[in-house]
């Protein structure tokens, strides 16, 4: 079976950890995030009848993405950027983080997840902003850790993107 390392990156309290909690195999407690700054969980997805083990490195949320965090990204095959749909500031931070990550890992595929989409009345990030990013080539999906909307699809979609890259 093929294994791949992926990373989960985003600002503080955007729901990264909740996003994985319900959908992956966990072995380590959340306190690793505050101590080591990273927590690892695992998810097996099936892409075109082939099972792929995703080792998910959940990188502790900090609004400043320091150099040390970049070492945790080493060797990843893809990453998920997570923003809180109800806070526009998280998107600004993610755009900044993505720029930094692209400098070191220019060709690694990624998907932007708009999390907390279940809080419909409180949306702060407008669709026009998202459309603009999509025009710039971003892959963007809506998720909700609470209702489970789009989470499985996000992992599958990223895995498919990564594998296509390996094959070509």
């Amino acid at each position, binding site marked *: 079976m*093929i*294994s*791949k*390392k992926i990373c989960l990156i985003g600002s503080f309290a955007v729901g990264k950890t909740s996003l994985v909690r319900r959908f992956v195999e966990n072995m380590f407690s959340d306190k690793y995030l505050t101590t080591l700054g990273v927590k*690892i969980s695992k998810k097996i997805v099936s892409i075109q009848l082939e099972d792929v083990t995703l080792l998910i490195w959940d990188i502790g949320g900090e609004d400043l993405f320091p150099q040390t965090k970049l*070492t945790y990204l*080493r*060797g990843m095959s893809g990453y998920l950027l997570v923003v809180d749909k109800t806070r526009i500031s998280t998107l600004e931070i993610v755009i900044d983080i993505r720029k930094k990550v692209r400098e070191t890992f220019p060709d690694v595929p990624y998907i932007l997840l708009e999390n907390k989409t279940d809080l419909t009345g409180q949306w702060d990030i407008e669709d026009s902003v998202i459309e603009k990013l999509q025009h710039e080539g971003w892959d963007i999906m809506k998720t909700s850790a609470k209702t489970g909307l789009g989470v499985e699809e996000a992992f599958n979609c990223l895995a498919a993107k990564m594998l296509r890259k390996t094959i070509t």
Partner: protein
Amino acid sequence: MENISANKISAKDELAHLRTLMLAPEQSEISELKERLNDPKIRAEELSRIIAEAIVMRTATDQKLATALLPTIEIVLRDVVKKDPKFLAETMFPIIGLAIRKSIAEALRSMVQSMNRTLEYAFSWHGILWRIESIRTGKPFAEIILLHTLIYRVEQLFLIHKETGLVLQHVAADSIDIKDADMVAAMLTAIQDFVNDSFSTKEDASLQNLNLGELTVWIEQGPRTLLAAVIRGIPPQELRAILQEIIENIEFEYSSAIDNFEGSTAPFEACKPDLLYCISQAQQTDSSANRAVKFSTKNVKQNTKKHDGSWVFIIIAGVLCLLIIIAGIIFSALR
């Protein structure tokens, strides 16, 4: 007569003429090919165009090229050393210092470990018992300490791809409760990164030991992979040498597989016997110490408590003490 011969000649000419008409391009091709085959300069030129690819292809299929080239390379090396030893010394300089430093550090650590062990046990309760055993059996004290303390077992071995933190291969001894190897390996890599980022300033510095009670994790580093051994008990320094040798072999033998690693562990399936050997090796060391014991925490504890005939000496000593006390009482009563 003349007429006939003249006819013959003209027929021959015609035939030759016909041949040139029909086969002229092929004829020139054949002569060209002949020329190419006979001219060493052209052949060398042609060979030079494909030789690199040919070597790469052959190296990928088997090791015969290396075997074939070995004598030549040996001669070349010898000549280089003879001609200009300084050149080779300068080339080797960056790695030789590192190798020596590492080897000296290992030797020192091994010495400190054995000294520590001797000191630790020399004055302890176990130490006294073992000293009696040493007198009784006539074996040196150090040997007795080794015999009692070298009870260890390699429980698990992880071969990990450094860059991604993914497991290339994982083996475990029987009856070990195995947690998810993928996640453990990734976390181990994360801890390593964390330690490096937090405390170390040098690039080549790395985590080598983790101690948790009676469990020890030894980490041997290769350039692109690392081998983590989870050991119960006190392992001898020789085990480190074995681990080092294994990782060096793997780095060498699976060099291209490591370079082209895309997440599939299939190419590394073949190094499983090497890793299993390491696990069985630990058990052999124990049996050579004449202890036909199966390893487990319970047994380790039992073994350190068991001291064959030394209890007899304690009883005799106790009886003697009792006799002296009684004699003392009687003596003082008489006075």
